[in-house]
Every structure is written in structure tokens, then in C-alpha cells.
């Protein structure tokens, strides 16, 4: 990124090739929507290019990238003015209706579909911290920098989010009719 900051814009291509996959995965889980994740990922790289002069050689590039990704995702949610819901065709097949009892329509054995639904019903802040924490390239010190909180607070929030996700997941698995998470 230092080379990009110095004017070698082609060097950003290497960073794109190395990081766009994990970034896209993070955004798919965060937004619950493939196209939205792609748009946000594109905006992240656009901002990298636009704000390359502000890049400081402090901490890892990944931490800076996820910091930008978090901002871009927040802008996306603000624009769409709605909490993310899974609308992938595969999700729609698994959950033909998002009304009460929708969990009954999910294939019981399809744990991943249930987990996607549980993740989408998790509070946005909890989902964000949980996904950052499960991304092993980032240390908790970097995560706390991204979230602008202390390391201890980041850990507590990540742990609490994992418990909450498990609770929603179990309620879905047992066909609880009014699963709403903490949203």
C-alpha cells in the first residue's frame, strides 16, 4: 500500500488479488446479500484509491481495509435504510416466507441455511464484531482499533455475540415461531 500511496497504482492490483476474496466473504456474511457485498467491496477499493494519501504505515493493511469496509457497509445500510435480510436465491428456496413459522420451512438438516438466517437476525453491531473476531488475520488489538473501543470491550462483545448467535440458531433449529434475535 506504501507503493500505491507513492503513485504506483498498479500495486493496488496485487492487493486486490490477495484480499478481495476474504473481504467479499466478510461482506457477504455482514450484509447477507451477495450483490450488496459486491457493491460494498467495490466501494472499499474505490476509497482505497481515493484516500491512498491518508494511509499510514501503522498497523496492518488488513486492519485499514476492514476499517474502510466497516464504514462503507455502514453507508450501504444507511442508504438502503433497512436491516439486511438474506435474499440469495438459495435462501429464498430454504425460507420461502420470512413470516412466523418460516423456520419450519427450512430443511432441518441444512445447518448452514439456519446459520445464515441466525446471522442475519443478529444485531448489526454484534454481527460486525463477531465476523471481525472470527477473521484470524486480525488481532484483537486491531479489531479494537477498527471498532474504536478497548481490547477488553472488543473481546467481551465478540464473546457475547457468539453466544447470542448460538441462542438464535438453537431457537431456529427447534422451530421457535417468534425468533427475532435482539434486533
Amino acid at each position: 500500500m506504501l507503493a500505491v500511496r507513492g503513485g504506483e497504482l498498479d500495486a493496488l492490483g496485487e492487493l486486490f488479488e490477495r484480499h478481495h476474496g476474504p473481504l467479499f466473504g466478510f461482506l457477504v456474511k455482514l450484509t447477507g446479500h451477495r450483490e450488496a457485498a459486491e457493491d460494498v467491496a467495490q466501494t472499499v477499493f474505490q476509497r482505497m484509491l481515493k484516500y491512498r494519501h491518508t494511509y499510514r504505515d501503522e498497523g496492518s493493511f488488513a486492519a485499514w481495509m476492514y476499517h474502510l469496509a466497516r464504514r462503507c457497509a455502514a453507508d450501504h445500510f444507511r442508504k438502503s435504510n433497512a436491516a439486511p435480510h438474506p435474499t440469495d436465491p438459495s435462501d429464498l428456496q430454504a425460507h420461502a416466507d420470512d413470516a412466523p413459522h418460516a423456520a419450519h420451512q427450512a430443511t432441518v438438516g441444512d445447518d448452514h441455511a439456519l446459520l445464515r438466517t441466525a446471522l442475519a437476525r443478529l444485531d448489526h453491531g454484534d454481527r460486525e464484531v463477531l465476523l471481525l473476531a472470527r477473521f484470524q488475520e486480525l488481532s484483537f488489538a486491531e479489531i479494537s482499533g477498527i471498532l474504536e473501543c478497548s481490547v477488553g470491550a472488543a473481546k467481551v462483545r465478540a464473546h457475547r455475540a457468539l453466544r447470542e448467535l448460538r441462542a438464535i440458531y438453537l431457537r431456529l433449529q427447534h422451530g421457535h415461531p417468534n425468533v427475532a434475535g435482539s434486533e
Partner: protein
Amino acid sequence: MTCQRTRDILPDLLDERSVSGAASEARAHLAGCVGCQRELAGLTETATALDTMPLPQPSPRLRQNFYAMVEAEKQADAINPLASARPQGPMRPAGWRWFFVPFAACALLAVGFFTGRQATPVQVADDTATRTELKKLQEQVNKMGRLVGYSLLQQQQGPANDRLRGVLASAQAEKPSDKVLDDLISALAFDPNANIRLRALEALSSHADRALVRAGVLAALPREQNPLVQLELIDFVAAARDRAAAPALERLAQSEGADRSVRDAASLALARF
């Protein structure tokens, strides 16, 4: 160690990055507590499922758009190299520099002043004439730049780089004529490259108070198929409070073919009206 304390520490056991002394005590407790073992197994299962969740691959569009964007930025830098020569990172002088820098600046100023006095004769009378001449030259250069921009804009069939250069040159005019605005609107409506359409819209946005611009943007809105450009167009008409845009926004908000974020943005803009 109690069950409650152990359960507080359980997430640390899931995370290889977390190393704490309490973790070994928690493990000792786990060895003899079935309830805590079950809790740990549950959290491990959820975390593993989250880590191994199958994800779709991004479409080739992401890579194509990225490289197009880098190319456009390189072209923009080539046209205006000063824009990329910004300071790299914040300046944080050490404490002693705060004292040293003013003295050094004064010394340099004094040296420059005395050297200049000795090396060149005073030419106060010529200064005014020189400034006037420089101003004229500057105006001519600006005018030439705008003329080149107009001609490039009109060559819609030319290479994308030339068209982009044309848009950027036209965007520099503070008070563009109707002709220039017409050309920018044409680029917005008809240019096949989304980056150029976005740049054209950006150039037009500072002239949203002109009816010609609002009408042009409104005409481009139903033609646009790219969600990024659509969102920017919607932002434009919403910011301009152009009520004439309401029918077009309604159609977009209800269009099943439009991207979801576009439909949402159109609905939001309508709500603002």
C-alpha cells in the same frame, strides 16, 4: 473455579489468540463438569460452522470494475499530476523542531533577501507589466484547455481515455456555457463507460441550480442501467428537490429489474419529496 466464572472464560478457550492464566484453571474445571463441557461444545460447534460457512464467489464484474477504476485513476493522475502529489502521511515534527524551525526559516529568509539584492537590480516598474502578461498567458492556457475538452467530449466514438480527459477538462470551467453542459449531459446519457458517466454527473452536480442540467439528469435517469450510476443520479435529483423526478423515481422504486439498493434509494428520495 465456579461454573459461572468458567463460562465467562469459555470463549477464550475457543480463540487461539487469547492466552490467559485463567484458561488453565477453566480447563481443570471443565474436566469434571458436564454442564460446562456441553456449553463449550455448543459454542465450538457454532464458531466452526460460522468459519466454514460456504460462500459464493464474487462475479467477474468486481474484478473488471476494479481494473477499469484503476485505469481511470491513472488517466486522471496523468492529466493532473499535482493532484497525486499530496503529502504522504501526517507531519509530526519532534519537539525540538518547534524551536528550531522558526529560526531556520528566518535565517533562510535573510540569506535569500541579501543574496537577491546583490544578484539582481530592483525592477519595480517591470513587475506590473510582467504580472499582467502572466495573467493573460494563464487565461489563454485555461481557454485552450477548455477548448480541447469540448472537442474531446464531442468525439464520443473516441477512446475512453480521451473522453474521460474531455469530461475532466470541461469540469474545470467555473461558469460553463450551455454548450459545455449539453456535452456533459450527452456524456452522462450516452457514454458506454460507467466511470465516464459518473465523472460527467460529478461535473454537473455543481450546476444543479440550472434548469438545463436538472432536465438532462432527469432524462438520463430512466436510461441508466448501472446501479452505481443510478444511485448517484437518484442522489442528485433528491438533493436538487426536483419534483419533476417523482414519476421516474416511482417507476424505479417499483421496478423489479432494478437493484434492491436502487429501489430503496428511489423510495427514500420519494419520501423526502
